[in-house]
């Protein structure tokens, strides 16, 4: 059974429908990328999995339905989320931001802090800095760290590279790989930058105006001329 199963998922903002009947699975231990242009519905998809939007359809985690569950219950069930705009707590220190992430996993604080400091040594050096005064790259690290503090099995990361310097993008990619390989997490990322997705994910899905239009390995997708031209730039 797949760790995350999504069946006929639609999402709405009032009367406007932002996602249309999405169906896909995320296998345990994989890194999956959802690629799409601005406004395609990537953030809406991750928000929906997290219980933050109005949805129809089914979302199951490990076979248990989490559709329409509250975000806090979905966190407890093992989903961590690093959203597009980070949504950090600006006037709290790095350490306190991470500790809020541990709200539902207080027994794991030591272990998780160790892991995060190993992945992002910079966060340990800056642990008393307020996130309001941090760079984009540092905030992305805090955001990922905060999501990891809840001891998730599935990590959702919304456009991890947006606005970041190429060197930081590589660092983040490396961390996501290590999370899968060393800490056996399953990772679902979204990307506009398809080449970053290609370098990282074994399976790629393409989202256009709220519709899932393609899904496959990177080789499969880059052999489709239209998709290759639109997303992979070759």
């Amino acid at each position, binding site marked *: 059974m797949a760790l995350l199963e999504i069946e006929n998922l639609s999402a709405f903002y009032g009367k406007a429908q932002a996602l249309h009947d999405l169906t896909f699975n995320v296998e345990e231990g994989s890194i999956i990328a959802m690629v799409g242009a601005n406004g395609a519905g990537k953030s809406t998809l991750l928000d929906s999995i997290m219980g933050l939007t109005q949805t129809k359809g089914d979302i199951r985690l490990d076979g248990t339905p989490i559709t329409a569950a509250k975000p806090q219950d979905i966190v407890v069930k093992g989903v961590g989320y690093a*959203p597009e705009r980070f949504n950090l707590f600006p006037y709290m220190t790095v350490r306190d931001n991470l500790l809020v992430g*541990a709200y539902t996993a*207080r027994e794991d604080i030591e272990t998780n802090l160790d892991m995060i400091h190993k992945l992002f040594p910079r966060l340990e050096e800056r642990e008393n800095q307020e996130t309001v005064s941090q760079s984009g790259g540092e905030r992305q690290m805090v955001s990922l760290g905060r999501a990891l503090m809840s001891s998730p099995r599935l990590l959702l990361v919304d456009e991890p590279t947006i606005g970041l310097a190429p060197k930081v993008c590589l660092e983040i990619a490396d961390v996501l790989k290590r999370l899968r390989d060393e800490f056996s997490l399953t990772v679902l990322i979204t990307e506009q930058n398809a080449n970053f997705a290609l370098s990282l994910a074994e399976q790629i899905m393409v989202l256009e105006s709220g519709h899932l239009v393609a899904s496959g390995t990177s080789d499969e997708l880059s052999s489709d001329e239209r998709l290759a031209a639109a997303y992979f730039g070759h």
Partner: protein
Amino acid sequence: MLQVLIQGLLLSGLYALIAVGFTLIFSVGRVLNLAYGAYLLIGGYTYFYFSQQLGLPKFAGVALAGIIGCALGILKFQLIVRPLKGNHVAIEISTLILAVFLQSVVIFVFGDSSKILLPIIPGVERVAGAAIPFSNLFAAIASWVILISLWLFVRSTHMGRAMQAVSMDAKGAAISGVDATKINMFTWALSGTLGAIAGVFFASYTQLYPGMWVAPLIIAVAVVIVGGIGSIIGTLIVAHIVGFLEILTSAYIAPELRGVFTMLLIIVILVWRPSGLFGREEL
């Protein structure tokens, strides 16, 4: 001079306690609780009823005031704030009506006339020509102890950090597993408790009367506007500005004008720096 300093410190500690419960609700719940003064009213009368009319020990009276304030805060959250979810104007009007309603209840039960609260701790100490009632000293010290405990609580417990988190970024708090409804209810309970206890101190500082919810509300609003809502520390600083302004006015200008400059200060800050001196809205 020393006299002004001492009186300013005593009054400011009390004002900080009054304002902090109001600030908490604004920061965490984004609600201007115009019934906040009613906690002080109910707290003062609860203490009066149990300690002075029934003759229970004074500290039991303070504790009961806190418990009733806590219950009132929870009721207000469940019956008004939650059903009116996000409709700020409706919430503010309802809370204001609630305050007037509670004032009527108090008049109905206890009558219209003002009452003197017996001092929590009797006795007066003369310092530099100023008479310092032990009761006021106790109120100031208790306020400080409560404020420091609150600060430590907000900074260093999971619940306190969650309160800060909700006040700074609701979505960030939700995806961290924080249940904002629970945190809000807890904050309303805490605010009611703090307000009611502040009410006992405030009534023993001044007097107990059915209209006593207005002045503390103005003080709380002043601290919030001048400080720009802001942190517990910001509240402390501005409470001292307001407290000293009042004491200086009554010492050197005229006691009748003591509240006037506070209100002028509110207007000046609103015009000059609408976001307040410290200008952030988070805990």
